[in-house]
């Protein structure tokens, strides 16, 4: 990977914001979408601003992810391309989600420069909220050390923590003290680095080496945590036990960047049902649980979004019942994505797997019929 360097004397956050400020002042873009601490100081929210002071005071890499950036970007560009050139400063998983939403016409990337940075992961939202000061200091430690214990479980085993489909990627890993790497990944990215006179032809070996090292660790962690997760949720009994505390609040779906529907199928009148149907279901099962269709909701949602799931973990953060939704979904998503060799958020032009097909594929899922059946229940024709 090739790139250049910029100054980050005030620390990583300040390095990023001063880079953005300069780009803003040089007209590389007209406004920046970036996380900022809320007035009460206990959380972070996205703002869209063209004000250099606000950018300078922003937190491009906050310790938590209360709102997935792709959702924020969607709220701006859902109805058409951004009104001015916007730089969206996002974590890699947010960039990937934005690319997926682009395919789903919920984000228009036409006037957007996607800017990502190496992401150490984030802290659990509820833990952070209970003591933001402690959280802040823990996160600065994390930015230094890139170790994992205090991170959310999905972040701990995230392997997409670095350059993805953004236009410009900022490398934190392997950089010298008080420096950041800048990698233009697209012509759009090069436009920015050119305008800023950053020569981006340096081979970033130390960055690459660090990235590989972290990735390896995370893969290791993923293997470990997958074994643990399967132990916890695999099979009817365990899965139902895990989901038994689900109260149907739909938080997981509402905060999911990929669940873009105005109203979820599973909240629609399709599943409303008539009392006769409820009674007959209750009769068959002995009793019928309310809220209804918990497992159907989760499995169904998986079938709707898992191919685009970027494993950002927002769902798990938002679950009031501490169900490991994020880990479960990420586990399933890895498999469904592998099925179609689909890497969400990687390629803006690759079609979503369910709107396309190949004639010659997936034969393992077809039940062969080579000879007439002569088993017990065979036809007596």
């Amino acid at each position: 990977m090739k790139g250049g360097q910029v100054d980050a004397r005030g620390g990583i956050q300040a390095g990023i914001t001063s880079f953005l400020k300069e780009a803003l002042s040089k007209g590389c873009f007209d406004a920046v979408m970036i996380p900022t601490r809320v007035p009460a100081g206990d959380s972070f929210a996205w703002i869209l601003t063209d004000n250099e002071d606000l950018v300078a005071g922003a937190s491009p890499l906050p310790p938590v992810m209360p709102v997935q950036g792709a959702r924020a970007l969607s709220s701006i560009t859902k109805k058409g391309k951004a009104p001015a050139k916007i730089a969206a400063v996002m974590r890699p998983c947010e960039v990937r989600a934005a690319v997926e939403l682009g395919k789903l016409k919920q984000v228009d990337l036409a006037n957007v420069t996607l800017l990502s940075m190496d992401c150490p992961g984030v802290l659990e939202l509820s833990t952070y909220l209970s003591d933001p000061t402690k959280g802040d200091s823990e996160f600065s430690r994390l930015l230094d050390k890139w170790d994992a214990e205090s991170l959310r479980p999905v972040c701990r085993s995230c392997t997409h923590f670095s350059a993805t489909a953004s236009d410009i990627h900022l490398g934190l890993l392997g950089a010298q003290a008080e420096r950041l790497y800048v990698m233009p990944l697209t012509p759009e990215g090069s436009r920015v680095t050119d305008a800023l006179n950053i020569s981006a032809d340096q081979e970033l070996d130390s960055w690459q080496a660090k990235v590989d090292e972290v990735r390896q660790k995370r893969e290791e962690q993923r293997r470990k945590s997958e074994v643990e997760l399967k132990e916890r949720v695999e099979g009817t009994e365990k899965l139902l036990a895990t989901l038994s505390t689900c109260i149907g609040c739909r938080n997981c779906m509402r905060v999911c960047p990929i669940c873009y529907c105005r109203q979820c199928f599973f909240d629609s009148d399709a599943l409303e049902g008539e009392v006769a149907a409820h009674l007959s279901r209750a009769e068959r099962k002995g009793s019928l649980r309310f809220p209804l269709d918990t497992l159907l909701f989760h499995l169904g949602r998986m079938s709707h979004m898992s191919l685009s799931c970027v494993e950002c973990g927002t769902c798990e953060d938002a679950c009031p019942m501490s169900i490991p939704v994020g880990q479960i979904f990420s586990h399933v998503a890895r498999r469904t994505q592998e099925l179609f060799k689909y890497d969400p958020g990687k390629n803006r032009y690759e079609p979503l797997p369910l709107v396309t097909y190949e004639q010659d594929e997936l034969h393992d899922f077809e039940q062969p019929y080579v000879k007439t059946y002569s088993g017990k229940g065979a036809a007596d024709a």
Partner: protein
Amino acid sequence: MPKTLTVNRGASDAVRALLRSLIEGGKVEGVFTLARVNNKGVGYALIRDPEKIEQAEPFYPWMPSSGGKQLSRLVSLSRRPRPLAVVLRPCELRAFVELVKLEQCRRDKLVLISSTCGGVYPVETLSDGNPDDRVPRYWNGLKAGEGQPDARDSCRACKHFIPYNADLTVALVGCGDLDEKCTFFVNSEAGQACLEGQGGVWGQSAVETEATEKLAAARDAERERQREELHLGSLGIEGLVGIFGKCVGCRSCREVCPICYCTLCDFDSAKYENEPAWFARELNSRKGVRVPPATLLFQMGRMVHMSVSCVGCGMCSDVCPVNIPVATLFSSVGEANQKLFDYVPGKDESQKPPFVKAELNELENLTV
């Protein structure tokens, strides 16, 4: 004073026995009550198999969702030939009655059983260790007619803990002999019919006791305390922004709210999605704009839509992933509105919810 039937069984057992006999005797087609799920969680259940009545936990001190809302989903508006027996908490029952008024479901062919309520624990505590560990403490509190210090804020501030509109009321608050005895208060003919043939001692008394009055007073005080803590009297825009600043827009407050019955919330409809040009204008007129925008618009707007029917059940606070005290705020505003119209949601079935259009304009000034 209503008629009573006292049976020599603990309250939960007595209710289970009653429910079982109702199903077995063919008096009802099924039972809707809180029940254990998978020996771990608890949820509402429509039970038709008498064997499964054992799983019913009618007074388990958690409220995983508003039973009123769930019941309205079950019975909706379609015809049903035979009755169901239903056990709900007072706030759930009130919510259900509001939903009946809002034409979301039908009241007929239901036997509504409720109880005086000691409140419930926050829903997230269901996943903290073994929830059953808390239960004995809860029952002891009930017997003593005291609230639980770690019950939900809303419950600790709830004064409507004696049910309205129940066919049968089970007295719990302040009943020291809860483990051995259970008293049903008969409030209607349907309630009376249910108890026909049940063993026990018939009598007559009032649900309201010294203990309930004491509890009501304690809760009034707690409610005032909570509101002061939030400075509700002097919030202003800055205060609201402070409270809702961390809102992540998940809408779960609406999702779990028993009064928010809309299929598609107005504030999620297409008309509130902003054109890109809107952002351009905002950028021009101020330095920065929060995205997604309109957090306060949603909160205030929802308040306008539902607060007059708000039963203060506290589900919204319970599920908020960023711990915003939604319920304290909403129930306080709701109460103010309700006072204005002399309206107690869920109390009088025949009283339609007041027309709230007049307030729309006032409140809109709050949304910035």
